[in-house]
């Protein structure tokens, strides 16, 4: 394991912590407890006294401090990648992460200055997950396992399995849409629009409708769809690719996470949005997305440029090759 990979994992973990802290800000209703930005009650952010971090300020200012740390870590990661990474697209990915975290900071500031407008707050939540995915990607792509995993004999069964490729590629997209629906529900105050669980007003389908109820119910439908897709992928992998531990492990993790997530979602409703439970739901949602992304990237390993440049070309598959290899042709 290289130090760059360790560092990328640190950025990834710090981002999950940041998302969790952001979840606590919303769950405790502390988003406007610091009315100014980028200062904190007129103080330079890093000079704000710890003794004044009370009540909602603890969550909001704490979120800003963790965000600043993640921003600095991301600058470090982007610079490191730019200097040592031979893969050009990885340099660009590092820059993309830096742009994303900067934009995320600006969105956070706008939410404060304009009293949490829903479109901006939802964008802030959505971009947080995009940035988290970028850090997961960077951590994965810098791993030794990723670099080793380009050989055709490992990937050919997956490449042939268009069902798996389609499902595993669609899963992160579905989870992301589900998170956006959840963020909309959260930032429009629709979290308790359906007050019971697992039924809705005692029925399978709500007997009455409003925007809040529709968003809430859509989030529940999305949860069922996500869980079914994850179970289908896990079953498919067990039946057809049981030797691929690098795919089986995230699939099992996804099954565990999505069941936990549904339980937390129900608990959030039944506890009337207890902050800790509500935040655990946000954090677990991010982990579901991150794990789905890892699975999707591994299934699509053969599509990455570094696979083609290394082991991939030296193990060219007959099904993939469009013309026979010529002896002596440059690779």
């Amino acid at each position, binding site marked *: 394991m290289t130090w760059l990979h360790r560092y990328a994992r640190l950025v990834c973990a710090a981002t999950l912590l940041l998302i969790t802290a952001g979840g606590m800000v919303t769950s*405790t*209703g*502390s*988003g*406007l*407890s*610091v*009315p*100014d*930005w*980028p200062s904190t*009650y*007129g103080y330079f952010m890093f000079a704000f006294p710890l003794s*004044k971090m*009370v*009540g*909602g*300020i*603890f969550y*909001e200012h704490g979120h800003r401090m963790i965000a600043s740390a993640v921003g600095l870590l991301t600058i470090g990661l982007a610079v490191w990648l730019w200097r040592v990474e031979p893969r050009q697209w990885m340099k660009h990915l590092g820059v993309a992460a830096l*742009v994303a975290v*900067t*934009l995320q*900071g*600006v969105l956070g*500031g*706008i939410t404060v*200055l*304009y*009293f949490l*407008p829903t479109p*901006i707050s939802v964008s802030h939540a959505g971009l947080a997950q995009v940035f988290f995915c970028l850090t997961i990607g960077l951590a994965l792509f810098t791993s030794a396992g990723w670099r080793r995993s380009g050989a055709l004999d490992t990937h050919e069964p997956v490449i042939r399995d268009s069902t798996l490729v389609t499902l595993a590629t669609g899963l992160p997209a579905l989870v992301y849409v589900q998170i956006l629906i959840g963020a909309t529900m959260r930032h429009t105050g629709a979290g308790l629009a359906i007050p019971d669980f697992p039924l809705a007003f005692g029925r399978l389908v709500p007997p009455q409708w409003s925007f809040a109820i529709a968003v809430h119910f859509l989030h529940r439908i999305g949860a069922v769809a996500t869980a079914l897709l994850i179970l289908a992928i896990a079953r498919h992998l067990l039946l057809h690719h049981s030797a691929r531990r690098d795919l089986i492990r995230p699939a099992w993790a996804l099954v565990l996470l999505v069941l936990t997530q549904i339980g937390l979602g129900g608990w959030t409703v039944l506890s009337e949005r207890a902050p800790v439970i509500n935040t655990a739901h946000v954090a677990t949602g991010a982990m579901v997305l991150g794990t789905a992304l890892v699975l999707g990237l591994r299934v699509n390993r053969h599509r990455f440029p570094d696979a083609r440049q290394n082991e991939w070309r030296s193990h060219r598959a007959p099904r993939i090759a469009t013309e026979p290899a010529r002896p002596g042709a440059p690779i």
Partner: protein
Amino acid sequence: MQQRNLWTVLSLSLLVMAAAVACGGGGDSGGGAAPAATAPAAPAPAAFDPATAGNLTGMVMLDGELPAAEELMMSSDPVCVMNASNTMSSTFVGSNGHLGNVFVYVKEGLEGRSFPAASGTVVLDQQGCRYTPHVLGMRVGQTLEITNSDPTLHNIHATPTANDEFNMGQPIQGMRFEQSFDTAEVMVPFKCDVHGWMNAYIGVLDHPYFATTAEDGMFDINTLPPGDYVIEAWHEQLGTQTQNVTVTTGQTAEVSFTFSAP
């Protein structure tokens, strides 16, 4: 208009993203406010001779048992724990079936009249990590002075619907600032996002005929022009009730409201 300004600022922010620290500007809504609550189409405002005035007195009662006041959990700020002399919620106050903290005002019957601008300042104080008073009234254009008497910091976050929202910080004991409202609105909620239990309500009116009931449920609204009125009583959890009443010169009309206990 606020949305347009918001997106404009967002676009500009994206362009100057690298200089994000410089992005500020506050929540000026710029032109989104409704015009002042005057009556431009009315002929001449009806003159009112105070000698012809009558008075209104009344009582707000609660049918059923007064809910026990909830204890406010202030442990998230040790300063509040040390300084709070009252840690009970102000939502339900009263005794012997009488209900306090009810805002009573003339809702209809004063249309076309004008009144002298309000003099004096209304004070909303933050003391013991609670707002004092909890429910109050003021006039459109009148000065509201918000003070922080606590040795801890507060933010004052007003969330009106007809007026402009604002959110200000008062990190130092003794700080005060002034604010006013352009449009009549019943009620304007106030909250402190630092201390989630702190809230207050201000009724903003374009006339001076309003009152807040004391713990004995009583209220008085004096010097009303003679006429027929709709009186509304507002409670933060029990909602509103209205009564019709006729005020005659030199007489004191009586009106009472009875809310059902939750």
